[in-house]
């Protein structure tokens, strides 16, 4: 079906499925089929921040003091996060927007992607502060084998869905031969690609950031690279919200609250969805191994980081009905929670050293003793 930027069909968006119904025409938010996406948009907008608000100048001095193995850990994580947000800043738009059918979800995806671009901009902000010329770091993201491998795993489900959608939009359903390859395009197959892609995105938002987050916050626990840590806290807060949205989408499908065919597909592809998650866990463990191969850092090592990945994965997998496959029951890095707590996230230029700064707070308690040294 050819995509149109403004469908002339006078449809009722309240009866459309989230994906693969009529394209969205009027962007109206006074009524929603799934009100949750409207609420997520509001919440995400209320989180708006700019990397320049965070003073990272002290990080440059801290960075010089780090050991070589710690520098490797710090920079590699930044490279990996740059990759993740490069993908997330564009892919939900390209893959999902052409097939979305309800306005609140369309706008949520746009809002979500926009925030990923803020994250990308903040990596540039951090790197430009640490290096006079960060080009070498950026170009290694495309050359480094360890990062490249991750890029393939992350982008393949997106690419697959985008390609099949393109064939469907230009040639319609049926069998088509393109550059010597034959593709059988059915609605079922398209929806299956969408389901797997959404699971891969969910796994990305759920666990792929957490090895880097843990390292960043471990530096901050030692009062090192605190500007960077403040930025990463803001990013972590956003990522938690993004994860909530993919969990909602997957659960709306699985519980039959949207497209009934998606409920069948969710049942049919449960194994595959679990496999996507499990291989993301495995890759994150390999990443932890790569980070620590030149030596560890105070407060963290490969084992503890791998346990943390399993711990987080248990929580995230059970949220989408995939059970808790790992044995870790208690949080191996309890201090992480202090950094992921949204109340502790506060940024304004004047408070770069005080993380508990609150705007407009007055201590209104007055005791008689306070006037003790007053003379009239």
């Amino acid at each position: 079906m050819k995509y149109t930027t403004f469908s002339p069909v006078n449809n009722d968006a309240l009866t459309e499925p989230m994906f693969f119904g009529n394209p969205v025409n009027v962007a109206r938010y006074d009524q929603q089929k799934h009100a949750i996406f409207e609420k997520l948009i509001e919440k995400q907008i209320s989180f708006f921040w700019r990397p320049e608000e965070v003073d990272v100048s002290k990080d440059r001095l801290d960075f010089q003091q780090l050991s070589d193995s710690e520098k490797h850990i710090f920079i590699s994580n930044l490279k990996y996060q740059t990759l993740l947000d490069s993908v997330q800043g564009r892919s939900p738009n390209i893959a999902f927007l052409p097939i979305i059918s309800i306005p609140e979800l369309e706008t949520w995806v746009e809002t979500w992607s926009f925030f990923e671009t803020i994250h990308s901009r903040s990596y540039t902000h951090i790197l430009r502060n640490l290096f006079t010329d960060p080009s070498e770091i950026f170009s290694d993201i495309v050359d480094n084998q360890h990062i490249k491998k991750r890029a393939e795993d992350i982008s393949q489900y997106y690419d697959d869905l985008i390609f099949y959608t393109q064939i469907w939009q230009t040639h319609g359903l049926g069998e088509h031969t393109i550059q010597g390859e034959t593709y059988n395009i059915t609605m079922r197959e398209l929806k299956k690609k969408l389901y797997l892609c959404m699971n891969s995105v969910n796994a990305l938002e759920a666990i792929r950031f957490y090895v880097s987050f843990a390292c960043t916050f471990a530096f901050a626990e030692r009062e090192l690279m605190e500007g960077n840590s403040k930025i990463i806290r803001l990013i972590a807060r956003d990522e938690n919200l993004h994860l909530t949205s993919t969990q909602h989408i997957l659960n709306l499908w699985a519980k039959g609250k949207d497209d009934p065919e998606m409920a069948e597909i969710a049942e049919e592809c449960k194994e595959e969805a679990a496999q996507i998650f499990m291989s993301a866990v495995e890759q994150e463990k390999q990443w932890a191994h790569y980070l620590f191969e030149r030596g560890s850092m105070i407060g963290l090592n490969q084992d503890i980081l791998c346990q943390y990945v399993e711990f987080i994965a248990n929580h995230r997998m059970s949220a989408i009905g995939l059970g808790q496959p790992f044995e870790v029951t208690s949080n191996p890095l309890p201090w992480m929670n202090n950094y992921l707590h949204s109340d502790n996230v506060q940024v304004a230029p004047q408070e770069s050293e005080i993380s508990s700064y609150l705007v407009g707070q007055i201590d209104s308690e007055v005791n008689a003793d306070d006037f003790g040294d007053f003379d009239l």
Partner: protein
Amino acid sequence: MNKDRYQVLVSGKEIAIKQEPDKTLLENLEDNKVEIHSHCREGFCGTCRTRLISGEVDYIIDPLAYIDDDEILPCCCKAVSDITIEIN
């Protein structure tokens, strides 16, 4: 029914909580040294998702995170009766 002290049965252990108006169930559980995982503490991340087996809770903030029909988010609700919960 509107009292301020409730029994909370959590994973086989019984604890008594005093439900102050601005204290969430999560804070009450933490005060009683119950191990519970939490991130955002304002209802949008779903990390503290907990199964409510019996009893009732009231939400202080509208929860945004996905929760199943039998689940609650302790970070943004408070108990309004004796409750039995199971932490994931």
